[in-house]
């Protein structure tokens, strides 16, 4: 019955921050590991590896996910945005600037996840209420700030957009 097959690496083609890449990856590794260990971009952080902290938040085809809960194999043909793709040659994204100005980060480990999640919110809803921001970000844990300055930074960036 069970025919145990040797585990073979698989090839995927995916677009990361606008750049198409062909990657050869073990089939069982997460998108988070794919980004950090295979692609070599480490801005996406691991806090829990079980979808409860949001530090590994990335955007796949316009929706945010916890990249620890996605297999690298699943993103073949998909478009991925990470924290590394947020600033442009013209400068920081308004959210990044607002996080700096509002002191919305202390240790900074959760910051990439919050920024990617907040950008997705503002892309869809340019002027969210405080309650909506808090609801949208409830999948992102921060242990340093008490969220106050994060929420204010998102509000500030939303006013600008």
């Amino acid at each position: 019955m069970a025919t145990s097959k040797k585990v073979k690496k698989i090839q995927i083609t995916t677009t990361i921050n606008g750049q198409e890449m062909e990657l050869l990856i073990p089939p069982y590794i997460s998108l988070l590991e794919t980004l950090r260990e295979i692609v070599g971009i480490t801005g996406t952080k691991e806090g829990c590896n079980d979808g409860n902290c949001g530090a590994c938040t990335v955007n796949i085809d316009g929706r945010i996910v916890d990249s620890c809960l996605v297999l690298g194999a699943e993103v073949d043909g998909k478009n991925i945005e990470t924290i590394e793709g947020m600033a442009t040659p013209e400068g920081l994204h308004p959210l990044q600037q607002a996080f700096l100005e509002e002191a919305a980060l202390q240790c900074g480990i959760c910051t990439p996840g919050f920024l990617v999640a907040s950008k997705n919110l503002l892309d869809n809803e340019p002027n969210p209420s405080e309650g909506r921001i808090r609801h949208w970000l409830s999948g992102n844990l921060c242990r340093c700030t008490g969220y106050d300055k994060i929420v204010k930074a998102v509000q500030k960036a939303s006013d600008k957009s």
Partner: protein
Amino acid sequence: MVSTADKKEYKVIGTRPIRHDGYDKVTGRAQYGADIKLPGLVFGAVLRSPHAHAIIKNIDTSEAEKLSGVLAVMTAKDLPRLENIQRASAEESGSEKHLSENVLAHKKVMYKGHAVAAVAAGDINTAEEALNKIKVDYEVLEPVINVDQAMDKDAPIILEGFEADHLGKKVLNTNVALHEIHDFGDVEKGFSESDFVLENEVNMQTVHQGYIEPHNATAIWDEEDRVKIWTSTQGSFTVRDSVSKVLGLDVSRVRVTPMEIGGGFGGKIPIYLEPLAAVLSRKSRRPVKLIMTRTDVFESTGPAPGGKVKVKLGVDSSGKILAASAVIKLEAGGFPEAFIEAASQCVFSCYDIPSTRIEGYDVIVNKPSSAAYRAPGSPQVAFAIETLVDEICDKKGWDPLEFRVKNVARKGTRTALGPLYTRIGLEECLEAAKKSDHWNSKLNDNLPSGKKRGRGIASGYWFNIGFKSHVNLALNSDGTVALTEGSTDIGGTRAAISMQAAEVLGIPAEDVRPSVVDTDSIGYTDVTGGSRTCYATGYAAYLASQKLIEEIEEKAALKWDIDVTEVVYENGIIKSKSNSELKMTLKEFADDSPGGPVTANASVDLEEAGGGFGVHIADIEIDENTGKTDVVRYTAIQDCGKAIHPSYVEGQLQGGATQGIGWALNEEYYMSQDGRMENSSYLDYRMPISLDLPMIDTILVEVPSEEHPFGVRGVGETPIVPPIPTISNAIHNALGIRMSSTPMKPSSIIESLKNK
């Protein structure tokens, strides 16, 4: 901001520049411990005890060693056995033996998750597979998981052969590692003269610091027996000293590079993985990286002690406290140190009390060896004393704020442990609370049925340490200043330290470029902890900047061929006192300064920073049907001495308050009978999420510390102290019930309501 400082004019201090490390942190470039990549890097994994209390009879690693891809396997046999020598380190107490045995269990496991063996392999999957092939023969013992069990006369003894200190006497075979008493004045007389004596006992579950970044360490052990370590730590020198002890190396053979750190709160002072990575590297001849899982973090690191605190107050009819006593029993975990001394210093710190007696018990239990967590010991005792004060006020019809003012501790007040206070700002905080919009607002009582609101207030204290720091400055040829320091930056301290240098130098904050460097590149610097960094490393930056100005003046005199007393430096301009023709900007000078690079450095070893007091006010709303408490308004007031970068001071208040709110309402180690933490994930260890909180308002009170040129006090720790009693007092205000255990979770509220 309420300022009671004599109004000094500052150009940089008190402004809110963008932090120097900010750009790296909002773009994903900042390198945290897990991000490091080295040529030939391999990965390690740690085998951890499934039992809370057991004797290790045998460890068989032979099968693991045979597994293809495995490069090294280690156990406690690979570490030198250390003696029961007390460490002299400033931040960490305990013996060298216990330090080593907490890193890797020797003969006995003290808690579930205690490290037993470690493996290095080419990839993490192989390393984990190898762990499954290590056979450990355990003799399982009865676990002891709280202070009552541990202090029972028939309790199993966890640390056999350990010499405990009971009031100065050496005692064997006890789970009480330390029993001590502090007393002052005649407490019994104080109680007998009181018109009103009330007592209160609180019970607290273990909680965790909860930093989002798991512990990690990467090490290379090279051919000349030098060890390089990259890790996320609050103190690179503490890691260096601890690792060198555990490995039996001279400190100069260990070089620690502090990576960016994803939160610590006291929990990233101890070492866990660093010696394992080093030994695995020695055995595999490869660089080895180890990263904990979230479950490892909960089960094997931290936590903050749970325990019981009993307090008693005697008050006269005018509302003056005459006597106070406390019995503090805190869980140390598997090895001694439950911060009962800090707890003793904090318990009556907000009050002027003529007679006090404090009894403390440091209790060994089968839980992870406790670590500092933001004002260690203080939240536990504040819960007891601040709810008792509230109860007394409630029973006597006294205003809780007026009562605190009437009994307030101020400069010259004798503290419970004896010494007199220097200038402190509790009174100013209480006055700020009295004037605050929050305290003067009406509590919203227009609520749907089944919802009740209440307001609570409480105060809290942390003493704030000083200790050693070193700062180097070098003037760049473009007139900017490179600042190197050894304090890891957890929450904006690069900015706060650079701003102090910039203030002295009269240049913009952005013109000081800070770097946190490794232990071979700077003088000894104590941990980023104890609320000391902005104060002590900032002080070193202040002194170094003054020296740099002297150096600039000397070299300008050389350049102009005038006497150095003729040269004056002011706000980035160098002038001659007598010849108005002689004038240049710092940049002009730097571009062509004679006599080699312009540099300066300074080091400090400071005494206390001047205590930090806070007062918090909370409005909560409770659903009487489900027992769920929501914080709807919150104000944190604190004397910060002088806020160097007010945004990051506010951030400390907001973050500390939030951790305290989590501790008050939902966070706990939920332990099984056999001593396992059952909720070792972020899903079930319920830290507050954004939707659980309102904005946290802050009021910064500035009563300058007498110990620092700008009046800086530490701010990081105090904010976690008042929230637990503040919330408890608010719950009493809403429902008339006194919650005497944490967490004050919904089921406990419902149970209390039923028993009301």
